[in-house]
């Protein structure tokens, strides 16, 4: 390996500019890092970094403001869609996204996400669903699979006591204010690529002021699930997707019937 050669090489992939030069606090193999990267790649590609105001949430991604080269505001747990609404309404030409976990978006923040969607706010919710409360130590989330053991469902989630996984993105897709709702995953390289294109469509629709957009990303929590990172990704692919089917749930900006 010589320095000369390096200089001549043509880069086909490199760390996106929109990311700060820091290593993240995420556990090894955590999907949050992948999603961050995809978002940052799109910021680069769509030249959004300078026009973006990010809206953080409370969860493992609470430090997202450390990683993106965009302005950022922190929200109370679950309230990011309301905070983003406030930002976007007074800064109508900015690109505004929330970055939320499943505890944040699908539990405590249910009302805020539903009504941001109902109002058709021109914001994009990036919804990282790892089926668990990562940050607080791996408790059950509304999205936790039936039978899944967590620190607050030690015998596995029992629907009689703890109910059923919440298909929140499907619910949001029903609302006319939702321009676009889709579910992707970062479980495999292929799915990572697909997830990026879902995010891209959402970002484009926000730019077109088409209304509320959300992309759910099925991700992992190797630490909370007690698995190695590769095993956790396999679990997403083999088991989680069964409960949360991937695809575009609604794309109201498209002509013709809604694709699913």
């Amino acid at each position: 390996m010589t320095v000369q050669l390096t200089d001549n090489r043509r880069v086909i992939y490199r760390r996106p500019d929109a990311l700060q030069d820091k290593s993240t606090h995420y556990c090894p193999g955590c999907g949050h890092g992948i999603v961050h990267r995809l978002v940052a790649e799109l910021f680069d590609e769509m030249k959004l970094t300078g026009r973006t105001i990010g809206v953080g949430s409370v969860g493992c991604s609470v430090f997202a403001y450390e990683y993106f080269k965009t302005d950022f505001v922190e929200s109370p747990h679950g309230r990011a869609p309301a905070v983003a609404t406030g930002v976007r309404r007074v800064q109508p030409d900015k690109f505004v996204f929330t970055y939320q976990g499943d505890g944040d978006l699908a539990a405590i923040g249910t009302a805020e996400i539903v009504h941001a969607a109902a109002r058709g706010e021109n914001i994009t919710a990036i919804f990282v669903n790892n089926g668990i409360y990562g940050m607080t130590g791996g408790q059950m989330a509304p999205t936790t699979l039936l039978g899944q053991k967590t620190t607050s469902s030690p015998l596995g989630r029992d629907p009689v006591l703890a109910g059923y996984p919440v298909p929140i993105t499907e619910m949001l897709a029903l609302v006319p204010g939702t321009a676009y709702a889709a579910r992707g995953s970062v479980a495999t390289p292929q799915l990572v690529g697909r997830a990026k294109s879902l995010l891209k469509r959402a970002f484009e629709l926000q730019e077109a002021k088409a209304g509320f957009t959300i992309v759910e990303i099925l991700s992992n929590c190797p630490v909370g699930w007690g698995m190695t990172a590769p095993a956790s990704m396999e679990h997403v692919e083999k088991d989680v997707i069964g409960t949360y089917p991937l695809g575009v749930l609604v794309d109201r900006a498209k002509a013709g019937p809604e694709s699913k």
Partner: protein
Amino acid sequence: MSAMATTQLAPKRVLMKGNEAMAEAAIQAGCDAYFGYPITPQAEILELMARRMPEEGRVFIQAESELGAINMALGAAATGARVLVSSSSPGISLMAEGMSYMAGSEVPMVLINVMRGGPGLGSIGPSQSDYFQAVKGHGHGDYKVPVLAPASIAEAVALMADAFELAERYRTPVIVLADGTLGQAMEPVSPAYRDPARLQTDWNLTSTNGEREPRVVRSLHLRPEELQEHNTHLQAKFAQIAEREVRFATERIEDADIVIVAYGTAARIARTAMERGRSKGLRIGIFRPITLWPFPTAELVAATEGKRGILTVELSSGQMVEDVRLAIEGRLPVHFLGRQGGVLPSPNEVLEACRKMVAP
């Protein structure tokens, strides 16, 4: 009585409902965005904003809840916009977490609480029973926010501009503490509104435009030492506010034997009692805090030196009276008269309490 008076002779005042007057004053003070949720007795603020803000090309949102409203306010305020939120007691309780975040992340915002009787769903009658909440312990953590308490609709109008000014000068939420009486009554208002100058800011989120470092508005400081430092900064700011921003008013205090300490509607009732008392030879004066935090501690001490006693009157079971006692520290007898649940004390009850204080 002046049956001869004609429209021409009248000063240019208009009758306005307190809620509407505060809302219009906020608009005239350059409020960029309003977020609210209906609740009695302040729904007219929301309703006026629903009509007027779009007319002015500004932002109005009826949020899905008070939680939604306060957090929309957090977002809008984080960009540097001038933001108003209003609610009444139960709705204010729901905003405790958001207020703590806003105080912690130092974003300016004005919140009106048109108080009603509590606890719980309570009544919709006028009350001052959220004094402790506003002044001491609404949200968690070590923070204070300036609290302004108007006693008339005209004053409420003037204080709206002051509230925005304070909020921006100190990067802090500010509470305007009114009650059902002030919200629902109509009184003359001179439309001499004020639109405070905008300050230069270097903290608010407007996107980097590729020209500066990213900015972050947050209350998180995970390392306790860092948070302690932030708290030290906040406390220094609070001390500065306490030193500079105390507001109060007095009436006929110089020759008074008895000083009634009261704010807002209670001070209005006290004024009637004072007049009746004076007409019967009872020398009553009034000390009226306008900032409830910072409380006019030194000013109260100075104003009451050598008096026979203090009567604190509140539409509550006794809340501000603690701040009065903290100021007085046993130097004078401090009495209390309160009515709760949406009931107003009558001027005669107040007078009677004063009379008892001077009775042997």
